[in-house]
């Protein structure tokens, strides 16, 4: 099911994210998704996240679909040129995958194959433009498709707590002009920044899902502050995570923090996207505490 149908009905859309393993055994990934994520609307599958080579997003999406879940196929422009990207989009549509998320992708130098050639033939904006063309029955080369064109709910990302938020808003507008249907955001820990961002972003009239990471401890939060673009965990949350290590380790503190952020931001957005990073088991508790 296209998640845009739910946005159109005014529902608060909840999605979460799974990362494919570095190998071919995915039974545990599917089982975890079925156990903890079957109650939510859709499940994102990351595409060689952080430029680390893993099992493919498309194959994992198909496995989730077969297990009765509703996948969101993430595509980055780092590893494939326009021919391969369009081919994978057709393949996804053939499998019955209806939701996609278009990203530029991290640079190859950040991952586990730093010597790899970065492609970036297209970027997030021109990829959305390409999907729109395919949906109209024509490919990026101007050639007609044979038979039914694919149809997707087309998502993209934006970073509301970025230190260059004006440039992010400008890029967001380009994605809107290219034809995107919905947005998911980078992880938010500062509701006031998110609310200020949404005041400016609401002019675009596209649904936005608040990005959430459940912080696993003070060390992880500090790591994100130093290394992850657009993510900042404020000092009071760091102190909260550091105060009781056992509580933080058990996920109790992280879930409390994430639930507070969701509650504060909920009136300003149209859904939430949870990047559990292996803590899928805490998603049901988080949703319950956040009152969703």
């Amino acid at each position, binding site marked *: 099911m296209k998640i845009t149908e739910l946005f159109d009905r005014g529902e608060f859309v909840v999605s979460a994210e799974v990362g494919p393993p570095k190998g071919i055994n995915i039974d545990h990934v599917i089982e975890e998704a079925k156990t903890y994520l079957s109650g939510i609307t859709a499940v994102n599958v990351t595409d060689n996240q952080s430029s680390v080579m893993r099992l493919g997003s498309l194959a994992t999406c198909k496995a989730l679909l077969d297990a009765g879940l509703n996948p969101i196929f993430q595509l980055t422009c780092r590893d494939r040129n326009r021919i391969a990207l369009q081919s994978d989009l057709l393949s996804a549509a053939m499998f019955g995958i209806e939701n996609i998320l278009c990203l530029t992708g991290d640079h190859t130098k950040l991952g586990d194959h730093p010597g790899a050639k970065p492609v970036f033939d297209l970027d997030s904006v021109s990829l959305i433009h390409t999907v729109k063309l395919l949906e109209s029955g024509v490919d990026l080369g101007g050639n007609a498709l044979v038979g039914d064109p694919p149809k997707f709910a087309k998502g993209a990302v934006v970073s509301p707590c970025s230190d260059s938020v004006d440039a992010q808003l400008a890029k967001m507008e380009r994605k809107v*002009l290219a034809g995107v249907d919905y947005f998911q955001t980078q992880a938010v820990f500062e509701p006031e920044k998110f609310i200020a961002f949404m005041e400016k972003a609401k002019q675009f009239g596209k649904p936005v899902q608040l990005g959430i990471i459940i912080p696993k401890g003070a060390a992880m939060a500090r790591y994100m502050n130093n290394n992850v673009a657009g993510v900042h965990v404020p000092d009071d949350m760091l102190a909260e995570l550091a105060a009781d290590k056992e509580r933080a380790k058990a996920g109790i503190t992280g879930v409390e923090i994430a639930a507070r952020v969701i509650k504060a931001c909920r009136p300003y957005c149209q859904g939430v996207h949870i990047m559990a990073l292996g803590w899928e088991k805490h998603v049901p508790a988080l949703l319950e505490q956040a009152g969703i």
Partner: protein
Amino acid sequence: MLITELKSKEVLESLLTGKVFIINCHGCKEVSFPEKEAEEFEKELLAAGKVTGILTTDYICNPENLQVRLERRRAMIDEADAVLVLSCGVGVQTVAEYLTPKPVFAGCDTVRLPGFQGVTPQEFDCGQCGECYLNYTGGICPITACSKSLVNGQCGGSKNGKCEVDPNMECGWERIYRRLEATGRLDMLKCPTQVRNFATDAEVTK
């Protein structure tokens, strides 16, 4: 070696809405410059009364030299609404940086030719991609200033203004945003989606 080719008349005319100061760079020995085409185009602009001055010179990529030559013509530059530079991508970027907040436009596309590469300043680089983007980006090259060579805006990877690939490298698209803001041209960011044509790119055609 490189060739500079004049952009199409429609593109040039769309750039020049008011008065213009023109810089022709006959370049270093590495550059083949479209002298005849440039002269014809400039004659038409002169006849239409749109030109405040023309500087025809060489090595505009040398910032010190360029500064002396531009300052001598400061009144003509101030009178113009924009500056049109007919040179390779390095020359346009050198002029655009020096003259900010004056809008500076590239009149040429830069195409690679096999052979020895000329001397260029370290701060600016031209990828010789054959479809110059400098007019969309305030005179900062997104092909060489962005580690992903993105042509549709900033990715999500900059932190504290620095590139995710190299903490010593400024995010090219943040520089572009600031330049467009300083020159009053932020509306350029709403230009149509750009799709690169690698058939003209040095990397593919070599």
